[in-house]
């Protein structure tokens, strides 16, 4: 990937779209600092303590041998703070309240992803990095999940950078969209909602989804 350049201000949300293997997760890893760019620089103003990350394989950010209810205790150590009330609200909104005593390994993939989403979003971060955060969630709960993320980001004046393949996620959450092709020397395209008419339609056409 080359010629990648974008700025994201506090309160802006960026969706990264592109085919498999086009480097979407790599962009998140560059921002996380676990990969170094071969050229150029990545500047993240938020400190490590203010960045929350939800990996594509959500199971790797959970502790499957523990119960659902233990996770807010562990995520409660998030250095910039953790809001227990937010976690409880998320659990209610996602219909997970009856699962608090269940071991995580016994939950379905969608329930595990929603548990992680609840835990991550309850961390008081200024930047949320999310790699396909709704990929395992059923349609019924997905709307609630996106709405919850949207409200939380707005309340904290935080930003989210998320990878997705779904135009619905983009439409409801993103103020900017970065479309990567995975083809060397093809410049990734950045679209801003405020500068593009029929934002969703345009993105759908350009991204081919």
């Amino acid at each position: 990937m080359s010629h990648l350049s974008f700025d994201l201000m506090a309160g802006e949300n960026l969706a990264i779209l592109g085919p498999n293997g086009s480097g979407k997760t790599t962009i998140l890893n560059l921002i996380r600092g676990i990969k170094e760019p071969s050229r150029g620089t990545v500047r993240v103003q938020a400190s490590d303590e203010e960045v929350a990350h939800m990996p594509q394989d959500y199971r790797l950010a959970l502790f499957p041998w523990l119960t659902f209810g233990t996770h807010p205790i562990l995520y409660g150590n998030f250095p910039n703070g953790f809001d227990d009330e937010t976690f409880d609200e998320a659990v209610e909104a996602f219909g997970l309240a009856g699962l608090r005593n269940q071991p995580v390994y016994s939950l379905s993939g969608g329930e595990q992803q929603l548990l992680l989403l609840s835990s991550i979003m309850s961390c008081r971060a200024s930047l949320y990095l999310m790699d396909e955060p709704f990929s395992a969630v059923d349609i019924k709960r997905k709307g609630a999940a996106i709405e919850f993320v949207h409200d939380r980001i707005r309340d904290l004046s935080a930003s989210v950078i998320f990878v997705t393949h779904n135009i619905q996620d983009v439409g409801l959450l993103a103020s900017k969209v970065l479309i990567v092709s995975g083809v060397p020397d093809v410049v990734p395209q950045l679209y801003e909602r405020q500068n593009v008419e029929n934002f969703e339609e345009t993105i759908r056409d350009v991204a081919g989804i």
Partner: protein
Amino acid sequence: MRWVQASPAAFATPSEILIALPWFVFPNGGLGDLAATAHRTGWAFLLALTIGSPFGFAVAKSRRFRVEGAFVLDFLRSIPATALVPLFLVIFGLDDFSKIAVGAFSGSLAIAISIIIGFESLNQERMRTADRIHLRGLQRVFYYELPELTPSFFVGLRAAASLCLILVIVAEMFIGSEDGLGKVIMDRRYSDNVPGLYAAIVISGLLGYLINLALAAVAGRISARMSGARFGGTVATTGF
């Protein structure tokens, strides 16, 4: 090197071995020897667990220890434990503790190494999560590290149990013993009781198999509780 044709007197038929096996279930037969070996193996295993677990954990958690102590650990584990039998004889004398110590030495290294390898193969993404949410101290040990180490820890435990049994039997052969399967094997060898010799070997194997089976069952149960994925099921070979 040339092939040597073994004398037919060195072999026993399966029926002869089967007839010799029941001797080991009678209290006035070989049951005492079987119990003595099992007892020493159990103590050697417990000692290995007590020494090897904290040692392995300390090495794994200390980057400096891991780097600077790697040579010492590699050297120790490369020493054939049977070569230590005379040394342990000198240090601990002829009593039971010599036999237990030989088994415990190898067993504790197997457990320590399994913990160190387990740490090295911890999932990087989950480790980054634990770092990012500042999981520290006992919370990190009990909620994250120990559960994630469970599979490799049990591999180490099973290897250690096998090593303890092997070395206790070897020690019983060479360190003056009044009982034990190792002594029985040597006695049968000197008295040309070939079916009895094979029967003792079969009983030794059976004891090792049962120990491993028990540990595999425990590992399977704990693993199922930890992650929902069973890894116990079969009796593994030690690889040591």
